[in-house]
Structures are given as structure tokens and as C-alpha cells.
């Protein structure tokens, strides 16, 4: 099991770009579908959903390096924290999931595919 998480982690660490995020999502959903016990399936679901949302926003449109860097800086630590929490208790896990969701909300406010001017 840890090998599968390592594979997701190393793929994620390659960075935020469409082809790679599609791969991250695919790995998470593949593991989620397997008949194995995963301590926190919400981790895989959250990472896959986050990656899919970014892919849909970035696919076939010009994404400036500035926007790609910002989104990666805001979300990468949260997704890495999710992958690291496999052995955490439910309360800690829930807190990390909340932080990831809140960060994604912030990214949406600032713009997922462009730089929105913040008032």
C-alpha cells in the first residue's frame, strides 16, 4: 500500500501541469476502486477531485506561468499533507481535509485559470 502512496506522491511532486495532474487523479481513483483497505479514502477522493478540477480549468486554454505557480504554491503543500496523513486519527485527518478544502476555495476566489484582481 505504501508503494502506491509513494507513486502518487512522486507523481504529484513533478508539479502542477495538465498531463501530470491527470495522472495523479488517475492513480488516486485506481487505488480507490481496488478491493483494499485504505485508512482514509477521503484523501484519495479529495486529491483526485482537486486535480480533476484543475485539469478541467487548464485544459486547452493558455495558463500563464504566474497563475500555474501560484496555484501550485497554494495547493501543493495541502495535497502533500493529505498524503502524509494516512496513519493519522480521524480528528487530525478531518482537520487536514478542511485545510485542503479551504485552500482550494481560496484558489477559486483568486482565480483557478487566471489572475483575478482581489478587492
Amino acid at each position, binding site marked *: 500500500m505504501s508503494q502506491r502512496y509513494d507513486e502518487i506522491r512522486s507523481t504529484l511532486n*513533478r*508539479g502542477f*501541469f*495538465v*498531463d*501530470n495532474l491527470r495522472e495523479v487523479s488517475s492513480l488516486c481513483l485506481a487505488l480507490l476502486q481496488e478491493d483494499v483497505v485504505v485508512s482514509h479514502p477521503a484523501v484519495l477522493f479529495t486529491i483526485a477531485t482537486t486535480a480533476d478540477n484543475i485539469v478541467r480549468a*487548464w*485544459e*486547452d*486554454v*493558455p*495558463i*500563464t*506561468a*504566474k*497563475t*500555474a505557480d501560484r496555484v501550485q504554491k497554494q495547493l501543493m503543500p495541502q495535497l502533500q499533507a493529505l498524503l502524509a496523513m494516512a496513519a493519522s486519527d480521524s480528528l487530525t485527518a478531518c482537520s487536514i481535509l478542511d485545510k485542503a478544502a479551504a485552500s482550494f476555495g481560496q484558489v477559486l476566489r483568486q*482565480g483557478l485559470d*487566471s*489572475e*483575478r*484582481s482581489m478587492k
Partner: protein
Amino acid sequence: MLVSDRMEADHTKQALRSMLVQRSLILGPITLSSGAQSNHYFDCKRVTLSSEGAELIGEAVLHEIQDLPEWPIAIGGLTHGADPIIGAVMMCALEHGKRIDGFYVRKEPKQHGTRSVIENVPAHGSGVVIVDDVVTGGGSVLQAVTAAKQAGCRILAVITIIDRLEGGADRIKAEVANYIPLYTLDDFRSDIERGNCPRDTTKSDPLLTGASL
């Protein structure tokens, strides 16, 4: 092709090139799907989804099709980049008294129902042309070529609007003998080097900064 037809084709391509520079070419650091960074990007939908652009693309692609040894039964490609090109060519062909059907290839099979990959799949053995807007690594074109071949189509040619000269051409030519990009990056190098382009991410581009137009 007659000399007058060739002159008309050249005029069409010149007008289309100018429109691509004005509307599609974007300067500035852009993150591509592959993760690579580029100092230019072609957002071809700004042209393919405009009335004038669709007419020019329809004519330009049709000129290339007329030079093929066989008239295709259908024209198709991977959704969404190919979709407006397919429509433009179909309509343009009809205006010239010719018929050509369209099909598009889904990126993934339908999750429910028929699970079909190709919408409006041509009859087995049909000669078809695959189109796309921009070629980088050639992945989108090859996905469409593979799906069409699996459906029993014969690929007469691949016609694209712009080839970014990043290796896609070699991969396509390994699968299809007749690969015709209307333009390559070389046709735009002078515009890129001179910054001769209204859309620049290093300046304020409302289409990229999210501001309202």
C-alpha cells in the same frame, strides 16, 4: 490546382495568418499541458470560433483537401480543438457544391449508453481527413488517428492549422503519410521576436488576467 485557385489559396492563407497573429498568438511565459514553459502560445479557438476565421479556415483546409488524390468521405478530429474546424470545412465544402461529413473523437468513451469513442462514425473503409488546431507533441492528432483507424477508416491526410515544431510532426508522419500543417512556428517567428502581437501576458491582457473586456 489552377493558377487562379492557387492565388486565391495564397490570399486566404495570408489573411488567416494575419488573423492568427492578431487574435491567437499570445506572448509571455505560458505553462503547457506537458509542464514545459513556452514564451508563446496559440489560442486558436479565438479564430476558429469567429465567423471570419471559420470561413478562412474552411477555405484553407478545403484547398488542401482538393489537392489530395482522393476526396474524403468525412473530416474529423479530437474534440474540442477540431470541432469548429470540422464544422467550417463541412459548410465550406457545401458552398463549393461538395459533400463531406464530420465526426469527432471523444477524449474518453461515453460513460453511459453506447460507450462510443467516435460520434457520427464513418462507414468502414471510408477515406477520412483528420484535423486539429495546434500540434505540439502530436498526442491529440494521434489519438484521433488511432480511433479512426480502429473504426476501419483510411486516413488520407492530417491537416492542422499550426505546428509548433516540437516533435509532433515526426510522430504523426510515422503513422500517416500525408501530414499538412497550414503553418509552422517558422511562419510566426518574426512576430514573436519583434513582439508584434497585441496579446502579451507580460503586459495587461484582459483575456488572461480575468478582467472584463
